[in-house]
């Protein structure tokens, strides 16, 4: 049993209620020892961020802490007044958000924002706070620590800004950090770097943390214990190794299995592939003088899945937009089904528009909120295929069945659907056109892992049944491995490697591909140590 004095944070029977009366978090109890990191794991809506904020005595958007006790370094937060809670925030407990860019004031230099909290709370004088900030900058390995604070937020990279936010959170030497998906918005290669520095810095200063994430492999590297959450309730809690190796609850088993499955190669169905459907020959393109795609050549056969992977800024989404006709090539040739393809969708014939359909990353903005599911899917049916009346209704019903949604969903507006259901509707809308090529632009990135897997399974099923051809744009290598026969790796607008997926994962040729592949977190707890050791050599 833990010594009471050793506990920095203790939550008992926490209950948080939304303004509309919905219970967001119910009966959660947890203890945090000094220097301990507790991972809160779950999909969106599991209540993990709500618990993190409640630990600071705060409810977002009118949410209310309706019951339970929160004791932070001996002070009970739910019973104490507003001024007591405010004195604790930033000083004893601090928050690190997912988006560092949104957490910094763009018009203030970094150093002023970072020393604000300790000076404001009277924890340190300004010179003391500045000295401590420099020490943190060094610990977080920020470049030129002495002058780094003089920069504005837009003058540093995403990874650096995320580390600066760590420094801001630790500026007043808090006992507890609430880390809310702190590395999710970063590229994989940047993520491990930030993750390692974060862990080392917290260990060095004995800071405890609630680490909120949906990524089991990331949390495995940093958390001592895990709490799995679902629908605001605790599913199971235990030491990280135990939970990952011997999950007790069924839900945890599914989460772990999904993550492990993602690390295994795809089924080896190396289809022969038909004739070449899409070919890019030395294509360059960009926006207003800025070249984003540089001399890109690739080809895609009918019935094949080609994955295009790369980090942000690699030009992979630009490639998708080029094929879709939203961007015209500045040089090079694009051929589709043996014919030259017009650059702009405005010049393409209706047959080409019908043949190439696209699915987007964010189903929320890809569906018109004022059109029902039925209207959304029916439009391409009437527009391209002239279906009316009974034929239209039959086809609509078949499409709904194909994507696994009941008939009565046709009358619903997108607002009444979950994220995964919306993405299914987007897929049905694309299929309604009976396309030859489906461009999938990060289609699973915004979805929870288990939902994302369902969508991938659906796409795979559609390929088997309808012989679909996919151009799959993603930054997520685990998706590539499960779905694509062939993979193109892009970096800075160029193709660095183009090979069958299985070969690429086994024997990556380009140095960049190797870095990318080894940056994907694994479920082993010592993975981060291994990789940092390997890099140090």
């Amino acid at each position, binding site marked *: 049993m833990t010594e009471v004095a050793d506990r920095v944070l203790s939550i008992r029977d926490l209950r948080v209620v939304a303004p509309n009366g919905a219970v967001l978090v119910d009966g959660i109890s947890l203890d945090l020892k000094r220097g301990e990191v507790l991972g809160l794991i779950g999909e969106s809506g599991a209540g993990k961020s709500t618990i993190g904020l409640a630990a600071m005595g705060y409810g977002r958007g009118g949410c209310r802490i309706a019951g339970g006790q929160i004791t932070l370094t001996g002070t009970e937060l739910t019973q104490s007044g507003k001024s007591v809670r405010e004195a604790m925030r930033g000083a004893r407990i601090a928050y690190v958000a997912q988006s560092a860019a949104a957490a910094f004031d763009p018009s203030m230099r970094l150093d002023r924002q970072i020393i604000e909290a300790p000076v404001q709370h009277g924890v340190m004088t300004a010179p003391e706070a500045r000295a401590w900030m420099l020490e943190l900058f060094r610990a977080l390995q920020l470049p030129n620590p002495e002058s780094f604070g003089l920069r504005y937020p837009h003058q540093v990279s995403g990874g650096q800004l995320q580390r600066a936010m760590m420094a801001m959170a630790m500026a007043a030497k808090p006992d507890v950090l609430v880390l809310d998906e702190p590395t999710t918005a970063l590229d994989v290669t940047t993520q491990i770097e930030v993750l390692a520095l974060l862990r080392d810095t917290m260990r060095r200063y004995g800071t405890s943390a609630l680490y909120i994430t949906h990524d089991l492999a990331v949390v495995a590297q940093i958390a001592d214990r895990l709490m799995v959450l679902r629908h605001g309730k605790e599913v199971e809690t235990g030491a990280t190794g135990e939970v990952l190796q011997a999950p007790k609850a069924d839900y945890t088993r599914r989460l772990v299995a999904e993550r492990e499955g993602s690390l295994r190669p795809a089924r080896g169905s190396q289809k022969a592939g038909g004739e070449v459907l899409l070919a890019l020959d030395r294509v360059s393109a960009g926006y207003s003088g800025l070249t984003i795609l540089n001399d890109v050549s690739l080809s895609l056969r009918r019935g094949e899945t080609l994955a295009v992977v790369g980090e942000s800024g690699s030009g992979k989404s630009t490639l998708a937009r080029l094929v*879709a*006709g*939203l961007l015209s090539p500045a040089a090079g040739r694009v051929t589709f089904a043996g014919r030259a393809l017009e650059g702009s*969708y405005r010049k393409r014939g*209706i047959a080409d*528009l019908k043949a190439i359909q*696209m699915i*987007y990353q*964010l189903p*929320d*903005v*890809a*569906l*018109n*909120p*004022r*059109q*029902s599911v039925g209207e959304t899917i029916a*439009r*391409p049916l009437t*527009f*391209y295929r002239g279906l009316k009346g009974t034929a239209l209704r039959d086809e609509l019903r078949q499409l709904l069945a194909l994507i696994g949604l009941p008939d009565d969903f046709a009358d619903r*507006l*997108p*607002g009444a659907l979950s994220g995964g259901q919306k993405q299914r509707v987007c897929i049905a*809308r694309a299929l309604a*056109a009976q396309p030859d090529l489906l461009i999938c632009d990060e289609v699973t990135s915004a979805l929870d892992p288990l939902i994302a897997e369902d969508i991938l399974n659906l796409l795979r099923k559609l390929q088997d049944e309808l012989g679909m051809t996919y151009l799959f744009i993603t930054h997520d290598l685990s998706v590539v491995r499960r779905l694509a026969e062939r993979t193109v790796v892009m970096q800075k607008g160029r193709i660095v490697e183009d090979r069958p997926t299985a070969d690429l994962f086994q024997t990556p040729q380009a140095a960049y591909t190797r870095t990318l592949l080894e940056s994907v977190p694994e479920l082993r707890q010592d993975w981060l140590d291994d990789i940092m050791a390997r890099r140090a050599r």
Partner: protein
Amino acid sequence: MAGTTRKFTLTSWIGLALIAANLVIFLAGPLLAPYGLEETLGTPFAAPSAEHPLGLDQNGRDMLSRMLYGAQLSIGVSLLAVGLSFSIGVPLGVLAAIRGGVTDIAMSRTVDAIMSVPVLISALVVLQALGSSLPVLIITIGLLDSTRVFRLARILAQGINAMEYAEVARLRGEGLVWMIRKEILPNAMPPLVAEFGLRFCFTFLFVAGLSYLGLGVQPPFADWGGMVRDNQQGILYGLYAPLFPAAAIALLTIGVNLVVDWLLAGRTTVQGENR
């Protein structure tokens, strides 16, 4: 508005009641009036009494009767002018946003040029040149106001046009009519409805301003804004007279805004966040 049932709130009831009352006055004002429009009944600015619940105006006419007569002109002129400004501004604004390029530049710069002259000055010039009659008044105000509506509609349509669902429709090969009617207008409705409520109230006051300068509703006909102006010297002597037509304008304004707020509550945002 796809079949969602809306819950009535206290403020919505107040707003609806105010609008209903104004509607009755609008339709049946002259029938309800106890006295004639131009009847002089006593001393100017007489205080409210049993025969004249709202007192007499600056010419000794019954205030209540004049307000009941005035409702038709006040509400009618504003409603028609705002209706006109929306039926011109919205389609053109949306068109400019979708077409972009030269179309957008030509239309937007024309609107900027018109807007660079204060509305009151433009209106004065037109009304002076053509003479003030009700149709001229309505068309002038409608046209001048449509520049504001154009700018709002254009910026809303630009935002929606950049959404992925609009991109999907464009990539499908949809024409202009579908883009405007199905993709853009339904999603631009909430801010446009709010703007309609506000524009309606502004127009009221604008007509009042023109009346004061002798170019609005012509005497002896009454409109509420003009009545405020006509009776304004009463304020200097601590009299109630100008407060009654002003209160009528205020109540209608509040009523319209309460109903607009209620209509917009719980609507999805333009960004499709579906909250």
